[in-house]
């Protein structure tokens, strides 16, 4: 685990403890000396000492845009923070294939971008052969049998397909997050699986640009994957959960 300071720290501008932070915001005021002062007081309300309003411009009639720098009095103690993290160490393709071989069958999975979300690039990157940044997708492994259902897939349909192919895992991608619709979609799937008595039979993975492991857990998934996830990360996670341990000896 990466070591983080275990004491309250301030923001770092260019000297330890200077607490420098930058803010920008719009207030419904026309630019003038009082508007500038309002911005200053607004910044102070956030805990910024000696805020410097570096710009005040009329972004629209009756609205001013401000940039402020100030010395934040706030601290945070990173050492005291605990957040769930996926701990599986990503394995090589070779190890992944070998471990699935030990399982004696392919790992079957279905994936989709659900609800009204049409952003497939993320789930495609994980599942499709092409992969992302040179890391080939799950389709490229001999050990995986992967079904990518694409975009705008309803939870019902997703479960139906999962059942039909006998999926070991369901991969859900959610990109649109407005008013937390991604959370609702995700939770609904889990509820539906539970209602159908399927929850224990599949591993559920949640992913998307605003997703992290904590959110995945919160919504009832086994794991959550965020920006920068590689197919090999997901492959390793599944292998780690499903396949017998891998014996390092050459002829294992």
């Amino acid at each position, binding site marked *: 685990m990466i070591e983080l300071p275990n004491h309250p720290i301030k923001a770092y501008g260019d000297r330890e403890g200077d607490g420098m932070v930058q803010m*920008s*915001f*719009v207030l419904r005021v026309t630019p003038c000396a009082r508007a500038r002062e309002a911005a200053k007081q607004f910044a102070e309300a956030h805990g910024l000492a000696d805020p410097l309003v570096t710009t005040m*411009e009329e*972004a*629209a*009639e009756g*609205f001013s*845009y401000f940039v402020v720098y100030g010395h934040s009095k706030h601290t945070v103690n990173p050492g005291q923070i605990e957040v769930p993290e996926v701990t599986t160490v990503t394995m090589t393709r070779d190890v992944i294939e070998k471990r699935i071989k030990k399982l004696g069958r392919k790992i079957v999975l279905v994936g989709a971008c659900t609800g*009204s*979300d*049409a952003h*497939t*690039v993320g789930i*495609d990157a994980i599942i499709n052969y092409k992969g992302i940044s040179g890391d080939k997708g799950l389709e490229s492994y001999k050990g995986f049998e992967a079904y990518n259902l*694409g*975009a*705008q897939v309803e939870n019902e349909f997703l479960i139906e397909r999962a059942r039909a192919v006998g999926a070991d895992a369901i991969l859900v991608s959610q990109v*649109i997050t*407005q*008013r937390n*619709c991604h959370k609702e979609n995700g939770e609904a799937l889990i509820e539906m699986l539970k209602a159908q008595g399927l929850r224990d039979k599949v591993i559920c993975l949640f992913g998307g*640009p605003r997703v992290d492991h904590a959110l995945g857990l919160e919504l009832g998934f086994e794991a959550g994957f965020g920006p920068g996830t590689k197919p090999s990360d997901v492959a390793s996670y599944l292998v780690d959960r499903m396949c017998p341990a891998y014996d390092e000896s050459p002829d294992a």
Partner: protein
Amino acid sequence: MAKGMATVPLDKAKVDRCRELAAAVASDVQSFIDEHTTVGVERTILRALGVDGVDGEGVSVVNRVIDRLQTARVLGRGVCTFVASELKGGAESIQDAAERLAFGDDVDFAAPLSPEESRRILAPHVTAALARIDEARGHREAFKATLPRSPEPHRYVIVATGNIHDDALQSKAAAKAGADVVAVIRATAQSLLDFVPHGATTEGFGGTFATQENFRIIRAATNEASARYGHYVQQTNYSSGLCMAEIAWMAAVEGLDMLLNDAMYGILFRDINMCRTFVDQYVSRRFIARAGIVINTGEDNYLTTADAVEKAHTVLASQFVNEAFALRAGLKNEQMGLGHAYEIDPSIENSFLLEIAQAQLVRQIFPTHPIKWMPPTKFKTGDIFQAHVHDAMFSLVGIVTKQSIQLLGMFSEAVHNPMLADRYLSLKATTYVHNTCKNLGDEIEFRTGGIVSARAELVLDEALTMLEGVARDGIWEAIGRGAFGDIKRTRTGGKGYAGVVRRSDNYVNPVLEALEA
């Protein structure tokens, strides 16, 4: 295209060949189009004739009518003959006729009128329908003529609060900050709705519903801003999805200037059935042509799913196809805002040169088209400072290669729909880049045999090869194997297929006929 600008070498014979191939592709589809109608098309015709309003459950009358005819399996004759029949049967007005068709107990689904008679009965209404469009166009153009025209590239921004009244405020703000075009982005899933919502709306995910009332509200706001800030601000919306034709008509009568409208976007990016889309796009474009609206095609989207270096030629090939379809729907070159985008991975060495090559190539191939230049989105991250610079380089290509319409990049692209300040800062930065580099494109030449020239030649060659394949297999097949945007669709798959109806022999549609005349 301005004189004296930097050019890339262009083999005219190849360009001509591309156009020929695209024409063949479009003609093939046109014969399908001419044999079909859709629920969307028929609803549009009803609206054009003057049908409006919703029932007690908030369902549009036009939907009620068409659904009923569809259920009765008589839609293949076209809604017009039924309207005419009701008028003949005593309906007081078109609206009354439609309401009878929608809710009446004694609708005669056998519809005894001949096409000729239907045409005759509807003739004055068709005239009125067209007059309404022409009048809206006239008003818009007259007002526009009173104001100075902004220099190109026109700066195009989106507003998307979900609330039309907030959108109106944002739209005025954008106008003040220099926007030449304001688009109201639609709510996330509207394109999949097989009806157009009604009235002013104040809630929507990721955008605001396209409704006729919303169009009115935002148009009024933009006109007000145009007058106040002394430059004409164009208003834009989306003629796309299952209701693309209806929205085209709404835009036509509400005086919009532009519409996102693409012959294939719905198929590829919304998984809308291709038969449906091809028919709908045609009819939508007939209204658009009449209204003098500029379309914006969606080739930029290809580069969000496919690689922008490897698949650059698919954008060009698709532009030829979109052009061919548009021509068949009566659009003028000056109405074709063909889309393309700055979407190459910014970490690639000399990627800027490839972007310039593509933009310049498109500019030269479509010299009189109001080309639409779209910003980087895919490689934007939450580092808003870096994203702002990324957009600046995009703006630079826009001015150097003299793009016509430039949708402004937003530094918050990977974060949220643009907020007031994001738009303001984007307009400020873009205006700076366009102004400081105003005549840069006239100043430079690209070295023969250089990276830019070679890239332009390669892309054209690849587009030609691709179009040969598409023409050979037909577009249905080509889409089937993922030729565009790496996305595969089947002829009968996708949403809205049930709404496609084969025209019967006595199909009649005097509105469309008039538009086609």
